[in-house]
């Protein structure tokens, strides 16, 4: 395999990791808002979160480019005020992957939150726990299996994300060429199928590793949460 291919593998793992890790707190927060909030505009937020699922990935990529590109309103502010450039950088690939994976992550966490018995939260409040403490000490540990599920879905999705990423950050080897972009590139040339297949295998291996690890972790956490001794 070529250097560029290995670079793509490594880049994809990094991008997927950061996309997952960075979006997790936001995902938990939004999931909580959607599950328990009673505010005006909840439906709008819900719709926004789902948008990347509904739109063809290329469109999401274009929208990101329009907003976060150097010419875009957000992109310009980020660049001028903080010196952060996303478009055509690997950081942009992180953003694209995070956005695309966000609906999956939020839904998994939200389902977990909705399954928490509000009576336990009430019990915690009677013991003096503020809303935030109730969340941190009761809700959060109880939804750990959902968070793991959300994170692994996000990671897997990020590993496979192509359309939005290539549109937002292009397909520059060594800089923004993720695994799917590299696979795509190989599929574009005669006789490239073999190389593409090797990359697919690597991609699947990495994601499966994460998947199996998450299952083992989730099982352990689930046993705890169900109140059984580990």
């Amino acid at each position, binding site marked *: 395999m070529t250097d560029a291919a290995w670079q793509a593998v490594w880049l994809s793992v990094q991008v997927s990791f950061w996309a997952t890790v960075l979006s997790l707190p936001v995902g938990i927060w939004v999931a909580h808002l959607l599950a328990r909030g009673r505010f005006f505009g909840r439906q709008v937020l819900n719709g926004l979160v789902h948008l990347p699922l509904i739109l063809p990935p290329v469109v999401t990529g274009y929208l990101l480019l329009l907003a976060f590109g150097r010419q875009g309103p957000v992109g310009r502010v980020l660049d001028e005020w903080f010196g952060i450039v996303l478009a055509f950088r690997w950081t942009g690939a992180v953003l694209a992957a995070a956005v695309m994976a966000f609906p999956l992550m939020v839904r998994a966490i939200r389902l977990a939150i909705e399954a928490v018995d509000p*009576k*336990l939260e*009430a*019990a*915690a*409040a*009677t*013991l*003096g*726990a*503020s*809303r935030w*403490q*109730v969340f941190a*000490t*009761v809700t959060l*540990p*109880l939804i750990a299996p959902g968070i793991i599920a959300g994170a692994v879905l996000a990671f897997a999705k990020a590993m496979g994300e192509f359309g939005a990423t290539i549109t937002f950050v292009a397909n520059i080897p060594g800089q923004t060429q993720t695994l799917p972009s590299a696979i795509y590139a190989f599929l574009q040339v005669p006789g490239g199928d073999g190389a593409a297949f090797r990359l697919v295998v690597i991609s699947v291996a990495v994601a499966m590793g994460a998947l199996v690890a998450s299952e083992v972790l989730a099982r352990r956490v689930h046993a*705890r*949460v*169900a*109140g*059984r*001794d580990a």
Partner: protein
Amino acid sequence: MLEVRVTHRFGGFSLDVAFTAPAGVTALFGRSGSGKTSVVEAVAGLLRPDAGRIVSGGRVLYDSASGVDVPVHRRVVGYVFQDARLFPHLTVAENLAYAGRVTGRRVDMAPVVAMLGLGALLARRPGALSGGEAQRVAIGRALLAEPAVLLMDEPLAALDEARKAEILPYVERLRDAAVPILYVSHSLAEVARLATTIVVLEAGRVVRAGAAAEVLADPAAVPALGLREAGAVIGARIAGHEADGLTRLETVAGPIWLPRIAGEVGAALRVRIAAQDVILSRGRPEGLSALNILPGVVSAVRTGEGPGALVQIALGGEFLLARVTRRSATALGLEAGVEVHAILKSVAVAQVDIGAG
């Protein structure tokens, strides 16, 4: 001191209660579905009543008129739920330490762990506890919150007699430490032992409320309390511990002997004497296995629909209740003013019915 005035509707059920719970234990007594848990939840802030006002120790917790509604975690109630509601992801020790953890208080768990016999369970998770064990942990968790008000919803229902007997003195000590306790129970024995005040609910309404000694000795209150559980509470003082294991108590009507009671000579006690455990005799009986014979005067006789009669006997300034058959009441000519002897077995007054005064 806790003042509760609450009205609330659920579907077909309407709650409309008002009572004052002074320092000590206020027992909420009533049949299943009469609204006990609902009242307790309103005090804890878990049920927002349609209207009303709840004041604890001068602090307004809820007032529909002025829109006050203190959030649950600021109310500092220790709530022992009817279902244990332990945190499944925490061990027993972590459940017990929970209140300390969230409030940042340092609490010594040892006495509560010892009293509730939880030492061997500390590392377990709630899923691996028996019903009674879980309930004990729930009690411990609430006690360790060092609450300003303690709400206990049938805390002992899942426990055996021996365990109850171990836990009750602890609750008494809390009562005496002036933490107001709202105590829901079906067991009049428990209520009589603990309660300073009794509030009887029926279908969402208060049908009787008042000082425990008064309510329990009032024949008119018996239907609301349940016949079998009727009985009076009299004051006593430990006069001495005798060699054969009996303790002599001084009452207004004379001495009585009960099986060894822990307590120093001179200590004041409350002794509940169930109406059904009292036998009446016109003359002074001889040659009986019952040691305790108290002379008194019948102050009221109440006959109901059934074959029974409830007789109130004045002993000095206190009252005893006796349940007899109407046939016996007639045969003995029991009516107000008649002098009688109340016969009372030592062993009939169980440990559970003796509380620190």
